[in-house]
């Protein structure tokens, strides 16, 4: 994905050549399969040109990062449901914290601030 964000569209052969330049030599078929999988996941677009496909990113780098991270967060929170959490949250669920309690606590904090403590 980084190669295609840097320069696109590229053919399979061009991607393989650039990987080789970056000391990551992979078989042509491996690169082709990987690009095809990324296309099927809608992460790449492809066009037929001179009997070969050229590939380009379907998402910007920022959009891609957002999509991956949203998936990770969603997986993490869904799996945590009903179990002892594996993370230390700043504020736990506020399901039991009513508006009245919040206001009382805010008043307590404000009082303390007024007293200069």
């Amino acid at each position, binding site marked *: 994905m980084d190669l295609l964000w840097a320069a696109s569209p590229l053919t399979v052969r061009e991607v393989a050549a650039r990987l080789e330049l970056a000391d990551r030599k992979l078989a042509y078929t491996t690169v082709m399969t990987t690009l095809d999988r990324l296309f099927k996941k809608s992460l790449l677009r492809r066009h037929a040109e001179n009997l070969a496909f050229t590939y380009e990113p379907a998402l910007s780098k920022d959009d891609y*990062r*957002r999509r*991956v*991270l*949203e998936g*990770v*967060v969603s*997986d*993490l*929170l*869904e*799996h*945590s*449901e*009903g*179990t*002892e*959490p*594996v*993370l*230390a*949250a*700043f*504020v*736990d*669920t*506020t*399901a*039991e*914290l009513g*508006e009245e*309690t*919040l206001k009382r*606590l*805010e008043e*307590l*904090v404000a009082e*303390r*601030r007024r007293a200069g*403590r």
Partner: protein
Amino acid sequence: MIDPVALLAFGLVFLGTSLALSGLLGAVLRCGRFLRPGSGPLARRRAATLVLALPPILALGLVLVLAAESAQKLASGTDHCLDHGHHLHLCLVHGGDWASRPLAVAFVAVLVVVMTLRSGRRAVELLLGQRAARSFKRLGRPLTADGLCRVVPSSQTFAFALGVLEPVVAVSSRTWANLAPGHRQALLAHERAHVDRRDLIARELLWTASLFGLPATVRHALSLWQLASEQLCDRQAAGAAGGPGVVAEAILAVARLCKTPPPLPPAALGADSFVVERIESLLSDEPESATAAARLLDAGVLCGLVFILGCALFSEPLHHLLETFLG
């Protein structure tokens, strides 16, 4: 030659002792003054740690004493098992008769299966957490020079420390965007405190120990430990981010943000809401109680040593008592 089936009896002694001690220490914890506000979060956390960790450690000590006694008798030729065949033996070699007690076998088997399943599930959750932590580190926008704290693009409200081995602090972009600079600093200082204090590792170790405790005691002690840890991190954050008032405000700002949609699943970030207790503790100038915590540790170690020493001194009558009790 050690008979593997003989280990069943030692397993039963271990589980029984651990559960009994867990019940006893749980009752002490409930009756003790550590639960009262003002006892200090460090002392409360220490008390909860001891209640969770001591039962399996002491039970293991008892089992080792009994196994050593059995091995020593076998080595010195003073083994008495064959002299009295009317009951089952707590013996490394002659304890194989346990296989003829289907209830005992089933009891231990069920416990082992339940513990294995729970441990397996926990391992999967931890791996998932570690994978998420790696993704946050790789793709999240760094907030601090050391790269520990990251902003994660999300429309939900959250901020947490994650990852036992490679910890990371993740803050959702929504949370970050809606906090004032002082509150952001307090939030990061609080989460960094969790990482510095190695709370995530400590909690996993206690969770493992809690497999051998009574569920009611475990729930209570883990909740107490969790609250005390949050309060200690609040104090550390207060020292780094402008005082308890700022930390209290930050907690309330995030709590208020949580009330607006989209909400997270109720259990995702923990079953307990400690907001009230944390703010009241922050504003009450409650002492940390380092001295009380040190005394508790001393008392815990002393009780442990007395227990193991007592088991070693009275291993012979204890051995017979347990054999009679187990059938």
